[in-house]
């Protein structure tokens, strides 16, 4: 009998609620611990933001009076919420996290840190969303085809290419691409996000942005699409082909296209959504090194500058976003996956 009798329905609901409750608690706890740990590490940075700002102000306004410098220093500490004991400033930080106001930035004082990050976010999300989705779709498609026709020559060629591309980190790939396409062939720009002044959003602006983002995107897509998602979906395809249920479907005289769609793709795409959800969760962290190598104006660029100028608030805003993204990706996946894949049940 199917496990769907009435008493077990009630039990099942209770179990489901308990599952959601524990997962939510774990989700919030990991975020809290993660943010706190990060905060402690970031606070230990030797670069003092106040001294940085003071230095800037002094060099611009030529104030030499020691008393007014001291006053300025105390004011700055207060404005930045950096005075007081470590515990106090931690509590101030936590309060700020809840309001999404991370305090003023230092790299662009007095613009709020969150504003700087949100201004840069479209660049990063645009680049990473496109490349992540491209990687997932093409990688899986090619992987399934290469797994299904594994004895054909093109499948073997694809596999060799994938094995070569996959282990190369994206920033090394970025260097290779810059060397080939920006230095040798000179088809794409060496870096930057846009090279004209955008007065309003028109076709020219969009094309310019696209032109600048092709190499960064390629450096992320090449090791990804022909790498991880290709290799894993190829292996999964071969596993699924060897399963009894696929072979029995063949013995039932079902046509190949039907088996490919209903038996192989369906059984493979489900586990592969896990990977998609996790990488989508990761896109807020930015591809820091790609952004640096291509001087691309994204969130990673901001984090980099924040580290070097001791800008704790801006850095924390970036890291917080990234932590939330990854944790939420995993959390939603844990909750939704049993709905998507009938083989998995809430535990």
């Amino acid at each position, binding site marked *: 009998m199917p496990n769907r009798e009435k008493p077990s329905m009630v039990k099942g609901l209770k179990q489901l609620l308990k599952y959601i409750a524990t997962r939510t608690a774990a989700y919030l706890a990991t975020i809290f611990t993660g943010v706190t740990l990060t905060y402690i590490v970031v606070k230990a940075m030797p670069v003092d933001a106040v001294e940085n700002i003071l230095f800037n102000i002094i060099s611009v306004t030529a104030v030499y009076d020691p008393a007014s410098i001291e006053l300025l220093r105390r004011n700055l500490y207060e404005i930045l919420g950096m005075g007081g004991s470590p515990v106090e400033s931690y509590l101030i930080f936590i309060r700020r996290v809840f309001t999404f106001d991370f305090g003023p930035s230092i790299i662009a004082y007095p613009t709020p840190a969150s504003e700087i990050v949100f201004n840069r976010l479209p660049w990063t999300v645009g680049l990473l969303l496109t490349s992540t989705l491209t990687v997932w779709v093409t990688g899986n498609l090619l992987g399934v085809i290469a797994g299904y026709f594994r004895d054909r020559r093109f499948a073997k060629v694809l596999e060799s290419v994938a094995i070569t591309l*996959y282990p190369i980190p994206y920033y090394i790939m970025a260097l290779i691409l810059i*060397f080939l396409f920006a230095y040798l062939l000179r088809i794409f720009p060496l870096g930057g996000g846009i090279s004209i002044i955008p007065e309003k959003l028109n076709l020219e602006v969009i094309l310019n942005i696209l032109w600048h983002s092709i190499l960064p995107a390629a450096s992320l897509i090449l090791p990804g699409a022909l790498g991880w998602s290709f290799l894993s979906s190829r292996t999964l395809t071969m596993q699924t082909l060897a399963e009894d249920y696929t072979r029995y479907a063949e013995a039932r005289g079902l046509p190949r296209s039907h088996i490919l769609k209903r038996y192989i793709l369906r059984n493979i795409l489900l586990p592969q959504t896990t990977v998609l959800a996790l990488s989508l969760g990761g896109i807020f962290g930015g591809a820091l090194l790609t952004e*640096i190598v291509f001087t691309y104006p994204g969130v990673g660029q901001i984090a980099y500058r924040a580290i070097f100028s001791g800008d704790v608030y801006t850095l924390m805003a970036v890291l917080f976003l990234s932590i939330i993204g990854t944790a939420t990706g995993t959390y939603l996946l844990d909750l939704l996956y049993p709905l998507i894949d009938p083989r998995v049940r809430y535990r």
Partner: protein
Amino acid sequence: MGTVTESLRRMGKLLITLYMGNLKFRIGFTILSILVILGFAVSPFSPTNTRSWYIVPRDRPPSYEYPLGTSSMGRDILWELCASIRNSLTIAFVTAMIASHIGLFLGFIAGIRGGVIDRILMFITDTFIIIPGLPLLMVVTTVLKRYLTIPTLGMLISIVSWPWPSRQVRSMVLSLRERTFIHTAKLSGMGTFRVIVQELMPYVLGWHLINFTNTILFSIGTESGLAILGLSILDDNTLGVMIYWALNWGYALFRGIWWWLAAPVATLVLVFISFYLVSIGMTEFMHPIARR
């Protein structure tokens, strides 16, 4: 002691079988051996100090005298490259020794003990997984800049490298635990520890070797990433540091001194591909479905 020598003997035998039986492993292992020889056997014979500036003519393209050319810093790129291979591999080895063993240990405990201990350990692991690794390492290396040496950098990178091996070993142990032979061993009155060592170790050891290799890959990648950002040990030779100087100080591409950048980039690519081939060679051997 007995189990340790037994494990080593087993690993040695595994390596020989792999080398004979798996093409990918053979290619990877061969490239890797050449790199190791260059780094550890050849580099001590360097005629010049690879960390000094302006000791050979600058910006010379590859020639008979300087096979890989010279850099704008006045270094012979061939010898600098050998020293860099040595240092990069050492950093990676330190990371792998620490991180993969922490992972092995925690994953084992979590998988075997289960219950509360498992939950606590996995909570810690998950917390480390959600913290963005590279920015965290950037901050840590800025904080500890004064103390950075080849071994300590390896140690620092292991902070962010252990969670994945740990999760992997745990799921491995969990699936092995379900198999009947473990139940039999438990029923026959063996203590938990002896169950681990005698029944599970042989199976987990192979995967541990794979984790070890992957951690090396991760560590070399992370070091070169940090170096490109100027956060590695800039006054020593590593593959990443070579790239840093060529890009940020020498503007190698703008000035057309491509060989300065090409040497470390090509070597890094070889390092990555060879370690990866070794890793999948082992995986295919351990997990025959991938072989077909």
